[in-house]
């Protein structure tokens, strides 16, 4: 028996691409979880990052918060949220946990991008009579665009990874294939699911890396920006 062959057969079997337990539906769930979580996190992280970056305040707190968030196991938060009676198991607990972990990369990159804009450029804009809102939106934000997108990119890739765990707390997404496959010792299904998960993460990374390059002002392109 060849596991690789079995996995290829599993991936090619059209029966696995139909219905609630099919790849398209699980993929859609995965994308919905990711989209909602990153969307909500952006609604929080972007304005706060823009404001703090513009004021050039709170950098220490933002960095400390981001570093501390790395030490927190996502699986633990996911499980605890599912066990809180008012949240319950399922996708809702997953979204709450995902939002929590998507905020730090968006916040820190937006902050660093805005606060890192050359002071002289900002002063020149003020000297020309620009108001604070105009300085932020017409000068600082365009210059910081690359890093803002870098933050979103890190958040998306990280949320796609964490969303695989939703299946373990009664939720959906592509992690269900790994969870169900293990339960039945159906390793072709386990591997087939893992291939889809890895493919989705890599595709998101490639698309967003391209987008980041596209929106970064040419003069600021200095090769790949280190992931946060």
């Amino acid at each position, binding site marked *: 028996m060849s*596991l*690789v062959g079995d996995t290829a057969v599993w991936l090619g079997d059209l029966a696995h691409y139909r219905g609630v337990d099919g790849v398209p539906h699980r993929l859609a769930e995965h994308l919905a979880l990711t989209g909602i979580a990153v969307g909500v996190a952006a609604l929080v992280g972007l304005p706060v990052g823009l404001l703090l970056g513009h004021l050039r305040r709170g950098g220490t707190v933002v960095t400390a918060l981001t*570093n501390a968030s*790395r*030490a*927190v*196991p*996502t*699986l*633990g*938060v996911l*499980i*605890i949220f*599912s*066990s809180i009676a008012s949240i319950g198991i399922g996708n809702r607990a997953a979204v709450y946990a995902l939002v929590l972990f998507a905020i730090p990369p968006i916040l820190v990159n937006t902050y660093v991008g805005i606060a890192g804009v050359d002071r002289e450029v900002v002063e020149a804009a003020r000297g020309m009579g620009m108001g604070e809102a105009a300085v932020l939106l017409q000068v600082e934000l365009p210059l910081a665009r690359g890093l803002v997108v870098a933050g979103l990119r890190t958040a998306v*890739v990280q949320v*796609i*990874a*964490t969303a*695989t*765990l939703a299946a*373990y*707390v009664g939720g959906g997404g592509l*992690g269900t294939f*790994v*969870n169900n496959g*293990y339960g039945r010792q159906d*390793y072709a299904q*386990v*591997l087939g*699911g*893992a*291939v889809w*998960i*890895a493919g989705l*993460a*890599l595709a998101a*990374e490639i698309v967003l890396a391209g987008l980041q390059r596209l929106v970064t002002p040419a003069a600021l392109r200095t090769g790949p920006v*280190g*992931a946060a």
Partner: protein
Amino acid sequence: MATAACIRANDWFCPAYLTQDSDQVVAAVRSHVELTAYALGLALLVAVPLALVVRRSRTGRLIALGIGGIVYTIPSLALFVLLGPVFGFTSSLPVIVALAAYDVQVLLRQLLVGLDEVPADVVEAAVGTGYGRLALLTRVELPLALPALLAGLRLAAVSTIALVTVGAVIGHGGIGALLFAGFSNDYKAQQLTSLVLVVLLALAVDLLLQLALRVLTPWRRAVGRPA
């Protein structure tokens, strides 16, 4: 021993949990530390020679960091599982190797930064004093790159400690096993205590590595201090 009231009430916060199930907790923490140590050790064994091989080659760097970047993007759950056919689906090796692979990327990047930043005049002075290639590397370049390497090691250690928990999915998750058990038994104190233990472990290792940096680089302490 009577069951503590907070356990009977299934409270979130219950210090009595630690004494009640101390054997289980100690075993979980030990396995968590072991998995982390194996992953970091393996990553160092790979990253240091790899950095020395690719440091002078642009293509070598691009290939090493490129492959590392691809592996780094693959979610841990998927990577654990994808290593199953090689190491076995119920072995701890997929967890160790996958986490080591992430760590190699972090360590390699930091090592290259550290080696690149060794001042050229320092290297020249050492060569002029008669240092051979090996002595230059082990007694000048690597010590000067140590702060960058340790910064990478801190980052790798903290994220590895958090990620080990996901290994519980394939039966090797250290404290992650307690999280899962707490979830299936609706045992709230076990869940919260496990989460706190993982965070404390990460912070403790982080502090230890900061301390190691101070001890290993005595020359840095003199910098910036008035004579």
